């Protein structure tokens, strides 16, 4: 019957089309990381170097720090590489991560309209945010529990002002990644806290520029953790550890330092072994 | 109730005893009793709504009666022609062979037999054509070939030529007669009095769900007994 042959052809094409999912398990690991490392292009720069050195394929899932840690908690990644020290320490304390290892830092910058209506420009992030608050200028918050969002809330805490809880009308929580939030800020011509890497590689700046930078408070530390194989037996401990070891090795640290956009270095290696 | 048990009267092929059929509150058949013997060619005549189509569908087993008994050959030994032939979206040969293959006949044998039947119906040259692209007459001849190829004991036809051009009507009629010569018994519903005269050995005249007259064709047209039949013949004449 022709129908049967139709179905067998269909089934055969399905099998052909099915991409090999489970092959070459050992030669690849999954890393849950943040949009800032992925979208700034850092991984695009690092991973080919690591692959040449180790033969290991690294698959990066880029999420907010909170989500990335959650992926690690569920055992859906082998390594977590994020930037929210408090949350990372909690992750390790709960037994989900083996050990937190600092790798590098970049810094946050306060972005705002080029005419800076709130007069927030300077080297002090706390003063800058206060100025935005007093001027009731539009401010875009990630609002997604990412590392950047956590940092932003930390700085607001230091101003002793709390527009998020006040639900101030000029304070907009977008609940989105760094890029989409920057797009929103550009469209609203508002202020936003961003990591320098994403800002440097961001193309749709329109009228925005950096208004506050260089404050030591703005340093943004990245840490890396192996997901605990004692919690999730399938974690690729060896390959994952190799990646971590490489990141903090002289070779890995040099690779991080060599990544530049427009001549500007984005990430500063500071691994302490 | 339908029964496939052998008909009591040894000679009858189809037998209905006080058959009633209702749809909701409307009574379509109001107690029809009828015996049809092998080799007969029976025309069902009557106005629209007399119950001709319902009677054919009951005999073919497409519907079941509410009351009375009905005995007819197993469905596999019957074939039915419809006014609009339901053709499959395949070529002519496959449409005919389908009837055989669905009964488990091997493909080559089915196609061989189908080609023979197509040739009898004058459709050999069209065997590879897409069935639904044929003319109305060709489509009905194809439906007839599909019926014929299964060598049915009983051929039912419901207004099978009603929407055909006169030339096609005659071709289809000739093929129906050929089938009867090969041993099929024919029961057909028609509004075409000429067709009834040309094909039928017997007329069953129906009105409002009852059989009013049941006689030979010559007798019926020469001496209609009931007022309904007289009216029907007169209307047709005008």
């Amino acid at each position, binding site marked *: 019957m022709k129908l049967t042959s139709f179905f067998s052809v*269909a089934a055969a094409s*399905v099998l052909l089309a099915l991409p090999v*999912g489970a092959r070459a*398990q050992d030669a690849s690991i999954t890393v849950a990381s943040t949009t800032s490392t992925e979208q700034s292009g850092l991984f695009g720069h690092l991973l080919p170097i690591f692959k040449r050195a180790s033969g290991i394929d690294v*698959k990066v899932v880029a999420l907010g720090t909170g989500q990335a840690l959650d992926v690690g908690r569920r*055992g859906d990644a082998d390594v977590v590489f994020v930037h929210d020290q408090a949350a990372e320490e909690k992750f390790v304390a709960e037994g989900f991560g083996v050990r937190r290892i600092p790798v590098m830092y970049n810094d946050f910058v306060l972005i705002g309209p080029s005419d800076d209506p709130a007069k927030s420009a300077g080297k002090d992030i706390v003063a800058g945010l206060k100025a935005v608050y007093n001027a009731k200028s539009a401010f875009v918050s990630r609002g997604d529990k990412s590392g950047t969002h956590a940092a932003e809330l930390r700085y607001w805490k230091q101003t002793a002002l709390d527009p998020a809880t006040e639900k101030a009308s000029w304070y907009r929580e977008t609940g989105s990644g760094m890029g989409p939030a920057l797009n929103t800020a550009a469209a609203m011509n508002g202020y936003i806290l961003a990591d320098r890497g994403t800002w440097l590689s961001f193309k749709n700046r329109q009228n925005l520029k950096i208004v506050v930078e260089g404050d030591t408070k703005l340093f943004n530390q990245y840490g890396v953790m192996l997901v605990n194989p004692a919690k999730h037996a399938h974690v690729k401990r060896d390959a994952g550890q190799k990646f971590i070891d490489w990141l903090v090795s002289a070779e890995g640290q040099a690779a991080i330092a060599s990544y530049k956009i427009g001549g500007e270095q984005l990430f500063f290696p500071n691994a302490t072994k | 109730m339908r029964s496939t048990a052998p008909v009591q009267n040894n000679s009858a092929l189809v037998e209905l005893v006080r058959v009633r059929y209702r749809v909701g509150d409307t009574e379509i058949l109001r107690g029809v009793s009828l015996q049809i013997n092998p080799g007969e060619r029976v025309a069902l005549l009557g106005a629209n709504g007399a119950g001709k189509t319902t009677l054919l569908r009951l005999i073919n087993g497409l519907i079941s009666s509410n009351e009375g008994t009905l005995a007819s050959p197993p469905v596999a030994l019957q074939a039915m022609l419809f006014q609009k032939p339901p053709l*499959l979206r395949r070529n002519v040969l496959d449409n005919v062979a389908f009837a055989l293959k669905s009964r488990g006949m091997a493909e080559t044998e089915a196609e061989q037999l189908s080609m023979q039947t197509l040739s009898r119906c004058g459709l050999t040259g069209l065997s590879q054509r*897409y069935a639904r692209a044929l003319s109305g007459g060709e489509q009905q001849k194809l439906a007839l070939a599909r019926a014929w190829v299964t060598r049915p004991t009983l051929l039912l036809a419901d207004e099978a030529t009603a929407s055909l051009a006169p030339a096609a009507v005659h071709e289809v009629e000739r093929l129906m007669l050929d089938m009867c010569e090969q041993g099929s018994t024919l029961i057909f519903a028609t509004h075409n009095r000429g067709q009834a005269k040309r094909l039928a050995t017997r007329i069953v005249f129906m009105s409002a769900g009852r059989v009013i007259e049941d006689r030979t064709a010559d007798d019926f047209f020469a001496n209609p007994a009931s007022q309904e039949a007289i009216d029907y013949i007169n209307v047709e004449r005008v």
Partner: protein
Amino acid sequence: MIADAFLQALALVSSFDPAVMSIVWLSLKVSGAAALIGALIALPLAAWVVQTRSLLREPMIVLLNASLGLPPVIVGLVVYLLLSRTGPMGALGWLFTPAGMIFAQVILVTPIIAALARQVLEDAQQEYQDLFASLALSRWQSLQTLLFETRFSLLVLLLAGFGRAIAEVGAVMMVGGNIAGHTRVMTTAIALETSKGELALALALGLILIFIVLVINIAAHYARQVLRRRYA
């Protein structure tokens, strides 16, 4: 911006940029597989609904029609939780793989194909039920014949399913993770480039996506006509 995007799309296509090509190819594979598997599930389901007298018939119809409106992100979230290592299907290791993306998209396209196929099969059933009864076909034979008789229309349904799959972003993003070179497809690449502010590049990828969908539909349209002509 739009003209810029057109030029960029042309440049990407004409240079056969390997990264773009692998993204396009993965999109076609994932969505094509999802549409085929979806059809293999949906067609028997639709056929069952058309011929059954079961009490489950009406609930199934409502369920199918309601699931036409399933939001891809919800499907993505549920599939994510299912496929997660701590979820019930975690042992498969399908999260962040193309297999997982296909799984999510099958859930999205099956209702569309089934709901449309039900309509097509029901119309054909109306047309053929007397014939099938008078040919004394079994229920299974009738179903097979119905599916075969409607094959041209069902091909279009396959395209409808494929169309929903390839245009979908929410589920593949969550389940696939948009991993460069592994699970990045057209739509997630577009979302990524948009979030990087590379609006022209995003638009260029979008143009390629639209172009591919168009080409596939044109090809299917003519394939269907040729198939028909063979019989006419």
